């Protein structure tokens, strides 16, 4: 006798076909159970590699732990010390905030400028896009950080060029007043990723809106400020949030350029670099964990602030 489904489908009875793995699973443990089986590889990875270590680091942040002995519960001591008696923490926050507040707006402005330029129906756009994106792929690599050190050192290329004009430049990376700014320039140079996103956003703005503005007598500059920029605010917002988080997490360039010290005189002591020093320099895992959780709170605060203010300046079309 044919199965009901065969009759319903009008295809008639089918010969005995071996049920698939999925059919056998569903029959054995139900649809929800089968779903968990397929979900397991990701779920295991999430629990073991992400959530587990995160919760463990939260626990460690309340302990004194040097990787050798067992963690010793110290309550809020780590947090109290960070808040009241750690000048390096304050220095690293100051350096990181300066870096974030300078590099993110400048990088976004630079990326937007290049995207607007590329959006003007340039011939060979694909090639230019690839060339401009390249620094983003290379920028966080160790090799580029080393190259950057060569560029801005006392006898580097930058001073070589300045020398042509009779200017005797300092060693930019070993002068406390300028070291951080070389890292800001390196960050700006990695504008490719936000540029690609800006370019996609610019492509989304309908051409006839610009034609309407042209009929209304708006110059190209006015069109940019009154049409392009407001319509691009969702993309600006997205890029700003992502780049801010990235900037807070910046590590490699400062590590390579300062040789892992955050010098000169803590001028490039990024928060993550200080955290690294505490964890793997002094093996104060509990203290480093507390620093990591504070960084999470700082990033969450900035992100939440961005979302709260978005309603006042981000325009969504629907």
């Amino acid at each position: 006798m044919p199965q009901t489904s065969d009759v319903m489908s009008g295809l008639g009875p089918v010969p005995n076909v071996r049920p698939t793995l999925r059919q056998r699973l569903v029959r054995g443990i139900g649809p929800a159970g089968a779903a968990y089986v397929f979900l397991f590889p990701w779920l295991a990875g999430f629990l073991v590699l992400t959530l587990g270590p995160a919760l463990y680091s939260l626990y460690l942040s309340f302990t004194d732990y040097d990787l050798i002995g067992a963690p010793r519960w110290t309550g809020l001591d780590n947090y109290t010390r960070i808040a009241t008696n750690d000048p390096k923490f304050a220095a690293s926050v100051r350096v990181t905030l300066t870096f974030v507040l300078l590099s993110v707006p400048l990088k976004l402005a630079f990326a937007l400028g290049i995207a607007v330029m590329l959006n003007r129906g340039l011939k060979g756009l694909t090639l230019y896009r690839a060339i401009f994106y390249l620094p983003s792929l290379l920028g966080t690599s160790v090799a580029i950080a080393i190259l950057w050190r060569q560029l801005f050192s006392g006898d580097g290329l930058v001073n070589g060029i300045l020398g042509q004009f009779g200017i005797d430049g300092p060693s930019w990376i070993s002068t406390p007043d300028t070291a951080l700014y070389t890292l800001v320039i390196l960050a700006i140079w990695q504008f490719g990723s936000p540029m690609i996103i800006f370019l996609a956003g610019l492509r989304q703005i309908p051409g006839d809106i610009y034609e309407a503005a042209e009929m209304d007598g708006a110059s190209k500059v006015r069109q940019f400020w009154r049409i392009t920029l407001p319509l691009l605010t969702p993309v600006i917002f997205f890029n700003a949030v992502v780049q801010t988080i990235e900037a807070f997490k910046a590590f490699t360039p400062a590590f390579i350029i300062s040789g892992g010290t955050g010098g000169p005189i803590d001028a490039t002591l990024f928060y993550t670099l200080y955290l690294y020093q505490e964890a793997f320099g002094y093996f104060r895992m509990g203290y480093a964990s507390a620093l990591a959780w504070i960084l999470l709170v700082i990033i969450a605060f900035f992100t939440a602030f961005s979302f709260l203010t978005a309603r006042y300046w981000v325009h969504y079309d629907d």
Partner: protein
Amino acid sequence: MSQATSIALQNFVKRYGAAEVIHGIDLQIEPGEFVVFVGPSGCGKSTLLRMIAGLEPISGGDLLLDGRRVNDVAASERGMAMVFQSYALYPHMSVYKNLAFGLETAGAAKDTIRRKVEHAANILQITPLLDRKPKQLSGGQRQRVAIGRAIVREPKVFLFDEPLSNLDAELRVQMRVEIAELHRDLGNTMIYVTHDQVEAMTMADKIVVLKDGHIMQVGAPLDLYNRPANRFVAGFIGSPHMNFLTARVTGRDGDRPILDIDGQTVTLPRPVPGLTEGSTTTIGLRPEHMRLDPRPGMQTMTDIHTNLQESLGGQTLVYAQTPGKQRLIIAVNGQHDVPREIEIWFDPANIHVFAEDGRTL
């Protein structure tokens, strides 16, 4: 106050690289005229409008506004305003800001802007919508705002690029009437692009029929309907479109040609120069010029086989074919239950005769 302007296109040409898409068009538009450019997709009607607007460079020829050559004058300085098919409203601005943008750009005083925006809003009955954003408006309301944006600039010429094609049928009819009333009230020169010949017929003072970058005919709507210059215009103007039948000239009754259409004899009521005995020609007969019952002076065709009928209530469309399998659409007033085989009646004065090259004879 009306600011009607004359527009002249002289040997107007548009090229994209080596490809010429507008081929030396000459056209005179009188002050205050409502001119409709109509034609199938790709005929160049929107390109022509955009060239007049200043959004597309003119490759050759001259554009004259009130006799002044404006080829090189910027779009915003030609005294024209354009309503786009997609409305092209600024989505991040309120309706008020949308209307005011052009005036703000021109540096108008705030109270002048307010007065003009409120005046336009009043004309278009969109005053309650001034604080809303475009996304909060219906299609018809957006179209009104787009028209309002044109009105506030007090242009000499209004340009409409298929402004109703995104609206549903009922709203299209309503907006069609409103645009016609606006033209009557403002008296400006208006150029309107559409592919919909019903819009062209109902709104235009003058219709310009375009095909492949050439003007096929220019004239008043009923001129084009009654006296199409060629087969293309005859087929394009009128809905349902004109029937075209192949006929053979078999003889003459005096100087009136006698035609044979699939074995049926039809005598034309007038001499037609260029029709020689034994030659084949194409005749055109509009669906609404055929009847199912006789009238004095009418001629008939028998053995017409009906394939399908569409009852529209006030009118019945019959899809049929002649004994020689030539297709016919017959539009008869009223409600009918049409049999499979019918006889049709028509006044031979309504027959159009076309030469081999498509010209009307």
